[in-house]
């Protein structure tokens, strides 16, 4: 038996009503029989053959018990044959009961209807019709046997009379009974079949729905897991991005410091040597015109060296001042600052990236002082300027524009770089999105900038054209919202 066929049969095998109901149904019938027997016995003085009780008891005991038992064995391969045998058994038993309940009279005949209806409810179609036919034939056999005298009549519900000896009456009664039995049972079978098929379809649909919802639940759980992972990774990445940006800043500053320090380092040695020579000349005691000329040269040299040192020290002081605007981590309160200073500090620290490769154009508008966490806003400038510088292959221009727009300030950073493809434009603020390749950055710079600006109550927008360049605009409110209790806790540029 194919798995699918068995599945269908087993699904169909469930009784159209529950075994408990079948039991009650038959019990009710049995009780009615007993009440009738009592009425006939004591009300009308008619005798009831004891065999009818034995037969009905056997029917009541065996059939519902079997029904209950087989209901738990629907997955057995013997289920259908066993149930068929029991239906045949029931019909035979009921035909026998019909004999004791009056033979060809109505009541006895219709008893068989219970069995055939149930049979048809179980198996509609050909098998059901066969069951009905079997019942009708069995009844026919009973009628024939009674008519020919093979079995004796039991006159019970129909009083013996001329009618019962008339073959036309007997045959016509039988035919009407047979017609009713077949018609009603087949019709019941049809309805049951339709209901069963509908139920199977419903079950199938239900099963699919459940599968789909199980799939949905599974993928949902997976998504939730993935999302949690992503959050963890992102938090970690933001942390390492801060470190990476710190590293980048340190590298840039170290490089910028190297030049003035190199000069000072050399000049210190030059000064020491000059001092030693002057001391030698003085120690010699005799100061002729040649010695004086040498001394004058040395003093001139020393003055020159000191001038170089002045420049170098100024450069270092400037760098450190700029650096300090980045260095204050997590200021507790916002400060009122000049954003132009922040831009200039950032440019100073990015000098090694910009060099002469990129021309910086400043189109600063009159800007009032802005209340913000200046170190974090400088990090935003750092990210945006670094991106702009890295977007420019070869030579190009970065234009910085600032203006006041109502209660907001706008800082615009425009580059003449490679631009951002339209399909990437929606994703540039996503974590991990980068077009620079894994060696350049971690793809978190814009995300962090976005977060910083958003926590200031502002926003960043972007316009870009491939091959022409990009414009990033930072909108910041003039005053921090007082509700922003904690200072934004992210920072760092990642490029």
């Amino acid at each position, binding site marked *: 038996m194919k798995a699918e066929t068995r599945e269908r049969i087993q699904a169909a095998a469930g009784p159209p009503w529950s075994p408990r109901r079948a039991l009650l149904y038959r019990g009710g019938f049995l009780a009615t029989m007993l009440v009738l027997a009592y009425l006939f016995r004591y009300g009308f003085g008619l005798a009831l053959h004891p065999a009818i009780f034995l037969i009905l008891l056997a029917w009541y005991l065996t059939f519902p018990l079997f029904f209950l038992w087989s209901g738990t064995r629907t997955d057995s391969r013997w289920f259908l044959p066993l149930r068929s045998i029991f239906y045949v058994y029931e019909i035979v038993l009921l035909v026998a009961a019909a004999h004791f309940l009056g033979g060809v009279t109505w009541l006895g005949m219709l008893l068989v209807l219970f069995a055939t209806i149930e049979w048809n409810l179980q198996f509609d179609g050909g098998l059901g019709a066969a069951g009905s036919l079997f019942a009708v034939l069995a009844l026919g056999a009973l009628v024939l046997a009674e008519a020919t005298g093979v079995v004796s009549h039991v006159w019970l519900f129909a009083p013996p009379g001329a009618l019962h000896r008339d073959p036309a009456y007997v045959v016509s009664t039988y035919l009407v009974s047979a017609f009713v039995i077949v018609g009603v049972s087949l019709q019941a079978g049809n309805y049951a079949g339709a209901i069963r098929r509908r139920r199977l379809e419903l079950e199938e649909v239900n099963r699919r729905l459940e599968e789909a919802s199980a799939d949905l639940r599974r993928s949902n759980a997976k998504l939730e897991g993935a999302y949690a992972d992503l959050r963890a990774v992102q938090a970690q990445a933001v942390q390492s991005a801060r470190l990476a940006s710190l590293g980048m800043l340190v590298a840039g500053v170290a490089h910028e410091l190297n030049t003035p320090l190199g000069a000072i380092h*050399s*000049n210190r*040695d030059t000064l020491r040597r*000059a001092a030693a020579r002057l001391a030698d000349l003085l120690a010699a005691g005799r100061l002729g015109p040649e010695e004086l000329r040498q001394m004058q040269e040395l003093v001139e040299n020393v003055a020159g060296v000191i001038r*170089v040192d002045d420049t170098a020290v100024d450069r270092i002081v400037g760098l450190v001042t700029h650096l300090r605007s980045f260095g204050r981590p997590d200021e507790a309160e916002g400060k009122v600052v000049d954003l132009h200073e922040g831009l200039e500090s950032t440019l100073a620290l990015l000098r090694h990236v910009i060099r002469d*490769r990129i021309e910086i154009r400043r189109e600063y508008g009159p800007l009032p002082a802005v209340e913000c966490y200046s170190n974090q806003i400088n990090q935003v400038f750092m990210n945006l300027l670094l991106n702009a510088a890295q977007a420019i292959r070869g030579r190009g221009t970065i234009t910085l524009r600032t203006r006041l727009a109502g209660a907001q300030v706008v800082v615009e950073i425009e580059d003449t770089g490679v631009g951002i493809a339209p399909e990437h434009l929606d994703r540039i603020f996503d974590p991990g999105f980068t077009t620079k390749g894994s060696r350049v950055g971690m793809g978190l710079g814009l995300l962090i900038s976005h977060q910083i600006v958003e926590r200031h109550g502002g926003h960043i927008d972007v316009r870009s054209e491939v091959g022409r360049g990009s414009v990033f605009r930072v909108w910041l409110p003039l005053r921090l919202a007082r509700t922003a209790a904690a200072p934004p806790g992210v920072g760092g540029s990642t490029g």
Partner: protein
Amino acid sequence: MIDRDREVVMIVDDEEMVTAALERFLTMETPYRILAFNVPAAALDALDSGPVDVIVADFMMPGMDGIQFLTRARERSPETTRILLTGYADKENAIRAINEAGLYYYLEKPWDNERLKLVLRNGIERCTLFRDLQAQMSALAGAHEDLNAIRQRLTRVFL
């Protein structure tokens, strides 16, 4: 115009404080004539107007980087010793410098003056030897030509 008694050292760095510091130190401590430039292109032009013994060039410069500059300097004045003085030391650039510019020495910022002096002296010596060798080679070639001429004359006389 050219003082042939003094060796010429060319310093090229876009940072004036570096060229100034080097110039101050070298004029005081060495007899060399110092040519300092802050723009590489100007330095290249100056190479045409007179022999230079040693060039000390920065790596990160506007216009052209130190390696490009030294490569062009090599085309104009092959005998000049080339030294890179850089605050941006990485292996890749060092290899590039040696292969492309025929680098003699790679100095890192901040530099040590004593070491710089030593490297410059050696570089000048190398350049001088190079020039001597060329002079001798051309002298040899001249002598060879003279000999040839004499041989031809002799041949003509005897035949």
